[in-house]
């Protein structure tokens, strides 16, 4: 290994595990000098290339970080422990009454549905009996009594569309407005 090879390796920064280079540098004053110079260059460059931003910029960057921060919401179980339930209920009597009523209605509805369901005894494999059960069910009775007057529905739909067309957003209404025609 000659001095040129060593100078090459010293520049490459990949000589740390090479005892031959270290030995050569220790024995050769010229290469030791180059190594020392490069070491000083490293120090100079480390100090020069790493540049701290000016103070004003640091302040602006800190503000950017603050602006980007979102308000921290604690998890729901931690929020629950912070709630004073007695005070919370005392401040909302209407809500408690409404929720109590809703609970009672839900219980009654469940009871009713449970009664309907338990009326029927399912028979596996008997399709005819199953169809009879479906026909006798309250749902079918309700649907059967639900009449839709398609004729009235159609007429009122046409009336609605005509109304929209002559309104200020409809195609006819927009033309009337654009023509400057004033209604009496």
């Amino acid at each position: 290994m000659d001095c040129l090879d060593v100078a090459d390796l010293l520049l490459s920064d990949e000589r740390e595990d090479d005892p031959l280079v270290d030995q050569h540098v220790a024995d050769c004053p010229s290469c030791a000098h180059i190594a020392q110079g490069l070491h000083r260059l490293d120090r100079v460059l480390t100090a020069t290339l790493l540049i701290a931003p000016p103070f004003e910029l640091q302040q602006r960057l800190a503000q950017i970080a603050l602006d980007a921060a979102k308000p921290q919401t604690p998890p729901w179980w931690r929020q629950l422990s912070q709630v004073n339930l007695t005070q919370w209920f005392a401040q909302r009597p209407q809500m408690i009454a409404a929720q109590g009523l809703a609970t009672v209605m839900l219980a009654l509805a469940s009871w009713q549905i449970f009664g309907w369901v338990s009326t029927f005894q399912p028979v596996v494999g008997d399709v005819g009996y199953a169809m009879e059960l479906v026909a006798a069910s309250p749902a079918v009775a309700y649907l059967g009594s639900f009449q839709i007057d398609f004729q009235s529905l159609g007429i009122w739909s046409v009336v609605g569309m005509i109304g929209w067309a002559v309104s200020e957003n409809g195609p006819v209404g927009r033309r009337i407005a654009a023509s400057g025609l004033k209604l009496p």
Partner: protein
Amino acid sequence: MPEPSPALVQRAQAGDPEALSALVQSQQTYVYSIAMSLMHNPADAADMTQEAFVRLMRSLGTYRAETKFTTWLYRLVTNICLDGLRRRGRPVESLDEPASTQAGDEAQTAGQRLADTDRWTQPEQEVTLRESASEVRAALNDLPAPQRLALTLHYFEDMRYEDIAETMHLPLNTVKSHIRRGKERLALALSNPAEEESWTA
């Protein structure tokens, strides 16, 4: 340590103000240094640094830890600076230009060029690196952009050649070559005034 911990990055992604501040504080010097190495101008570098952190805050949620956080951030800064140079109508040196075309004489190895310089090879003569910041910066400014950026990243703590290559989108050997050529040119320019004059000319 420039590389922030994964826990800090996750807290910052969740919007924790302390984590965001810590992240900005730990990275601002490195980001500004990259911007300075590409923009050459403190005002432009400050603008680019600010833009980089604004974009970082916007896109922090998209970081998926597939690469190192610093590699991801430094690549973002590099791209912003290159865009900034284009927007300002300033010449943009391609980062993937091979080092050999920028360093001149290919017949000599780096070691030969370095060893040929009298000041380095004569131990009795004191090596006087001109260490004033302005002279070093002037010598750095004379380097081609890829060498300057590669050197800047190289002197960041813990920045490996592989990370530099990923940041610059360059092959590993090209990055090694840029760093080597950059150091060699700086060593020559800073150790020998006549040599530096020839570089700056």
